[in-house]
């Protein structure tokens, strides 16, 4: 009997709650352009005009409207493609606000590109390096990097992509990670971490400590190859670290400690862990000593 009365179709109510016509600009955004056409022609219109002049006025309206629409199209094209690049150099961290209130904290040696004028239509950015995002609820927010893409709808998460590594940690909300080459997808909830290596792997119950403590002021390494640890330290202090060829750079170590003020303290801690010694050659450059070096403790210069 229910089928005969015009009641609901499959999941109709839930669906239409979430639908909207696909207009690129909202009424408010279009108002400004419309307003300009008004002052150009509207104020001077006299209702007592003869029909003939009204027609020519109408034609002029059309031309102005057409011109306005052309300018609109040209403007919106430049709006769409105007790019802002935020580069966080080595030795620094930066936090920026995006036009919708979302914030991004960039770690050392990271770069974010986005289109600020097009932000209200589509929130898309390009990231190389590492950044922590806090995204305002709203339309889809996409961050593309060379090897992966992360899509979110209001949440906070960390993306770390250096060299051929792509890692995403979800802190709150839900995040979708896409491997660009293989097309593999994964959905992350808080505490989950996605790693893209040869394939996309998801780990659960990862603490925020490891993924996001860089923001709190800690070096946090969990079973990381020595190569990555040293690269991270080099980026953070903007120094160069030279290594002898015979050292095994893929050996893994774990460490968690506050950012020391000086780089050599950091190297001392890692060195104790990983079993290496080093010398400081200049303000900005360090050299790891070969494995069987006789020097016991390096001298501070």
């Amino acid at each position: 009997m229910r089928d005969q009365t015009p009641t609901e179709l499959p999941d109709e109510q839930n669906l239409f709650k979430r639908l909207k016509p696909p207009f690129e600009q909202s009424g408010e955004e279009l108002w400004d352009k419309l307003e300009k056409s008004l002052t150009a022609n509207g104020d001077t219109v006299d209702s007592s005009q003869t029909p003939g002049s009204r027609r020519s006025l109408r034609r002029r309206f059309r031309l102005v409207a057409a011109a306005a629409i052309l300018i609109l199209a040209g403007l919106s094209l430049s709006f769409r493609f105007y790019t802002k690049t935020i580069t966080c150099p080595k030795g620094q961290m930066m936090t920026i606000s995006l036009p919708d209130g979302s914030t991004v904290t960039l770690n050392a040696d990271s770069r974010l590109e986005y289109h600020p004028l097009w932000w209200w239509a589509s929130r898309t950015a390009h990231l190389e390096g590492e950044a922590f995002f806090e995204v305002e609820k709203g339309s889809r927010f996409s961050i593309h990097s060379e090897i992966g893409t992360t899509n979110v709808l209001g949440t906070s998460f960390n993306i770390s992509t250096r060299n051929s590594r792509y890692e995403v940690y979800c802190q709150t909300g839900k995040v979708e990670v896409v491997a660009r080459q293989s097309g593999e997808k994964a959905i992350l909830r808080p505490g989950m971490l996605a790693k893209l290596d040869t394939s996309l792997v998801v780990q659960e119950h990862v603490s925020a400590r490891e993924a996001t403590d860089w923001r709190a002021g800690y070096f946090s390494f969990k079973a990381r190859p020595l190569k990555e640890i040293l690269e991270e330290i080099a980026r953070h202090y903007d120094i160069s670290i030279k290594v002898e060829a015979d050292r095994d750079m893929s050996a893994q170590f774990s460490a968690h400690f506050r950012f020391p003020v000086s780089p050599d303290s950091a190297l001392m801690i890692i060195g104790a862990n990983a079993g290496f010694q080093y010398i400081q050659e200049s303000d900005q450059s360090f050299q790891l000593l070969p494995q069987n070096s006789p020097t016991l403790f390096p001298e501070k210069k």
Partner: protein
Amino acid sequence: MLQNGWKGLPQSPSAGHTSHPQTSCKNLTKQQFKVCYDQYFDSIRSYLYFRSGNAELSTDLAQEVFLKLWEKKGSFEARNLKGLLYKMANDLFISSIRREKVATKYLDRLKLDLYAENPEEVFQYQELKDQYEKALATLPEKQRVVYLMSRLEALTYKEIAARLGLSVKAVEKRMGQALGRLRKQLNDHA
């Protein structure tokens, strides 16, 4: 609230009389116009979209409607403003079809944007949305417009009737037809 603002407008003097700049009450102020714009622009644009399935055309025509409204400001009765706006939109739509053959009679699908809370919801509703988009495109324009004004704009049948200049019974009939067709389309492809 809007209606009160409009009711106060007096009729314009007949053609042939010169108007004095001091009698400004016959002119619509920009503020009143903006209030009207804020209230109805989205609806008019959506109405045009429900008919044509063309987002750019709908946006252009909707702006033209309001431009025309501004142009007419001193010379019409604002008794049924929303009815007037819809009528103007209809007239512009028809003349744009005739003029440029822009809107195609046959719609492939009526695209809609899906706003979901999270990626799982997107996944959940994506396919259903696809089915509805195709099904909606097969509806006759009259039925589709009424259906979408009801489901997307959440307007009552009474309100739809007032805007489109129909009786409530006529709206009910079109809704019933639309639902019947949609049910058939969705069941066939379910």
